[in-house]
């Protein structure tokens, strides 16, 4: 092996942190003065690198670091504790506002408005038409022998401040999803903020038309229609 080859191996050995030389290398250094001088210089260089890196990272830690940090943590903790109830309240308001706006939108559409003359039995909680949420709100909630219904409406069985909390009417099968939505809202500030504001007008976005389901359809002859 040439001196160049030995020097490369020497550098690699020092870079890997090897503490001893192999027999072949040690033999070459005994016979080659130039390589021995190079080796000593490299040992010195790697030693200086290690010392330099250690000086770089082992700076004395200022006492103010932990003191300042503890103060900031306490401050942060206090802010956090005060912040959570505010968001809780905001989330409830946002959720109620969404449902109210949605219900109002449905109510204002004449073709989807339910016929007010149609009466709904007060003794039952099952409602034939799911669309008119506003109509559903008028239905008196009473105790029912139906166990499914009792499970689905805890408000009627509990008296703990029931009248002070905002109430929302949702489809029974969507209740759990709504619960999850309300629970997750405080953690998703961007969603809560977005829901509390009107959506910007986006003329280019496509409109999705929901399927219209017609339960009862009565076809009358035009001749029989009275003229106004």
């Amino acid at each position, binding site marked *: 092996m040439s001196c160049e080859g030995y020097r490369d191996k020497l550098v690699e050995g020092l870079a890997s942190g090897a503490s001893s030389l192999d027999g072949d290398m040690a033999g070459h250094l005994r016979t080659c003065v130039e390589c021995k001088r190079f080796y000593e210089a490299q040992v010195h260089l790697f030693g200086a690198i290690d010392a330099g890196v250690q000086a770089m990272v082992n700076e004395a830690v200022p006492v103010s*670091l932990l003191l300042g940090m503890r103060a900031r943590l306490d401050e942060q*903790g206090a802010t956090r504790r005060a912040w959570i109830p505010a968001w809780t309240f905001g989330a409830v308001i946002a959720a109620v506002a969404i449902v109210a706006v949605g219900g109002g939108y449905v109510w204002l559409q004449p073709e989807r408005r339910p016929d007010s003359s149609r009466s709904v039995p007060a003794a039952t909680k099952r409602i034939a038409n799911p669309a008119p949420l506003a109509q559903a709100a008028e239905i008196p909630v009473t105790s029912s022998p139906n166990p499914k219904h009792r499970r689905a409406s805890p*408000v009627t069985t509990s008296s703990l401040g029931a009248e002070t909390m*905002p109430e929302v009417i949702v*489809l029974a099968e969507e209740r759990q999803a709504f619960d999850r939505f309300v629970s997750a809202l405080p953690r998703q500030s961007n969603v809560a903020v977005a829901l509390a504001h009107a959506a910007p007008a986006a003329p280019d976005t496509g409109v999705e038309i929901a399927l219209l389901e017609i339960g009862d359809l009565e076809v009358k002859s035009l001749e029989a229609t009275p003229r106004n």
Partner: protein
Amino acid sequence: MRELVLIQPARVLVGRSEREEESPRSHREFEERLAECGPLAFRVAYGVLRHSADAEDVAQEALLKAYRNFERLRDRARFRGWLVRIVFRMALDRWRSVKRREKRETTGEQPEHRATGPSVEDLAASSEFQTRLERAMEELPEKFRLVVLLAGIQGYTLEEVSGMLGIPMGTVKSRLFFARKKLAEKLR
């Protein structure tokens, strides 16, 4: 036939308040780790910035960021490695912004010429060697630089660095080897 039910969203949130009780527990747990991890965070930041006040500031910011996200860290045993990465990343960001500001302020000045000629012995003995070493460190790829810094901190073995960064011991050694070789090339 579909059923409508009347529910109270506020009640859902009342149930959640039990979960909020975890916060003080996490707070205590974090404070317990602070004594050990605070100095580590400072040293990593100082290794990048080499300015005590800046390093302290970055370490505090990183610790605060770690605190805010502490509850999301599922494996608490990985806290040190997680914190080290946060500190290192924030220190690099700070270092880059400092460099940009310095560059703006020194626009138009002559670039600094490197001294040529002195032997390795002379360089090692001088403070100029430290300056050149710092520059050489800055030019290292980030993942190699982080390993060199952590391996240089007193009290941390290569096994601990491996565990801290969540990488195999062989990877730590090979990164250290590559980094030391590169540094020697630049300083020779």
